[in-house]
């Protein structure tokens, strides 16, 4: 569903990209993305939002994100519980259209400290960004 909708808007997004000369202004505007959280890396900065807003324990959720920085070819999402040394039992599907994306099919199956991991790859290189979430 979402994948299809995104593919439809991919062309529009690509246009928007060309039009916005530098990404800096677009990135500043992201400050106003209500509820979104920021992870700043060397090459990319990501703003993300989970749906539902509070990540549930043991139920599927999705993540919307927007990238600041050079174009990305691929974004992958994952989860990791450092204290227990295990990840998720699901592989999320990521639909990327320009600098916007949606990941579906995430599930954090335990309470405790989780890392949400984004792996971004593009002509500018690869980067792994991590956000922390403590689930109760």
């Amino acid at each position, binding site marked *: 569903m979402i994948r299809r909708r995104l593919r439809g808007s991919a062309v529009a997004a690509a246009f928007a990209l060309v039009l916005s000369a530098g990404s800096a202004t677009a990135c500043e505007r992201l400050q106003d993305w209500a509820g979104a959280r920021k992870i700043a890396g060397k090459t990319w900065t990501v703003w993300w939002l989970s749906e539902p807003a509070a990540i549930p324990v*043991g139920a599927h959720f999705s993540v919307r994100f927007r990238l600041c920085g050079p174009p990305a070819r691929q974004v992958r999402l994952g989860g990791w519980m450092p204290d227990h040394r*295990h990840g998720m*039992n699901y592989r999320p599907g990521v639909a990327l259209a320009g600098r916007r994306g949606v990941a579906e*099919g995430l599930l954090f*199956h*335990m*309470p405790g400290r989780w890392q949400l991991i984004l792996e971004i790859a593009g002509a500018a290189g690869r980067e792994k960004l991590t956000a922390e979430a403590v689930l109760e």
Partner: protein
Amino acid sequence: MIRIVRFFQIAFCMQFILTALPVSAVDFTAAEKRKILRHGPWPLPATPDPSNRVSGNPAAVAFGRVLFFDTRLSTSGSVSCATCHRPDAGWTDGRARSRGQRAVDRNALSLFNLRFNRWFGWDGAQDSLWAQNLRPLLDRREMGIGAAGAARLVRADRSLSCHYRLVFGTAPGADDDRVFVDLGKALAAFLETLVTGRTPFDDFRDALAGNDAAGRARYPAAAKRGLRLFVGRGNCAFCHFGPAFTNGEFADAGVPHFAGPGRADPGRFGGIRKLRKSPYTLLGRFNDDPTRSTAVKTRHVRLAHSNFGEFRVPGLRNAALTGPYMHAGSLKTLADTIRHYSTLDEERLHAGGERILRRLDLSGREQADLVAFLDTLTEAESGPKVEVKSEDLFCR
């Protein structure tokens, strides 16, 4: 002399009070309290299963109940679902490994609270309750009648085809697989009604939430100590999480998984592979929900080597009624399961890398406390006796 005795008496009393203190006062910390509250409220709200168009339909419940007790659904004519899932035995058969027409490798799961499951079977090879219900009908060791045999029976039998018509609005058609899956859906409608009732734990949990001191005091001290271990040092609540006491996922709890001499039960690893080969999943043509809203799990489930030897985390409500325990019934009593966690072989367990379970080395009293706690997850009153109503036997 008297003074010395008095001193010992006082010392003894002091010690008694000190050890008893964290218990009888049992003031759970704020963090403990938050963890405990996550195991309720109960019962959970129930919504119909969108993948099953007769979920919640009373006629389907009646039809499912009839099918559940019908031995004609086995090739030998002597085995019904109730052979291995006895209503008077916590919906299990009391055996370590179950036996239908022949013996199977696994312990019969009980049938409580199924409507809240994400996956079905010890290995989660099924992604819906209706698909799970088809499995024994396909397995020759259990009932083995198969899709064609089951469809033929329903078409030929006047009462069964009458039920079918009442539920699905048409006579059973020529597509064997459709009729077969519909039987699974009627069975699911019936099994969805088996939800466990309120327990002493639920009363305590709600008293904790509502700051009701009298209600809190009614819960036995041993159960409180066991509960503290359960959400604390025992790490139990990482897996046995939430109102149903399961996170619905899979883990290696350190239980040996030999299915027989030289044969291992692959557990979740085999379950995901079976799921991917099955025509009866939420991604297939039998899902009644055009939006496939519940198929996210099936689309995204990941097969990993670490799934080998993992089994579904069982819910613990009414666990006291459903022994023997674990996927092959290797442990007889709840006390045995606690002893298992207390004396785990960490070397073997951590080979896969996951670190949650550890050898707990619990004292005798701590073990008894955990059992006392698990006992309070048993419903106070069992629901009305489940049996086929005579008018349902002769649908015309």
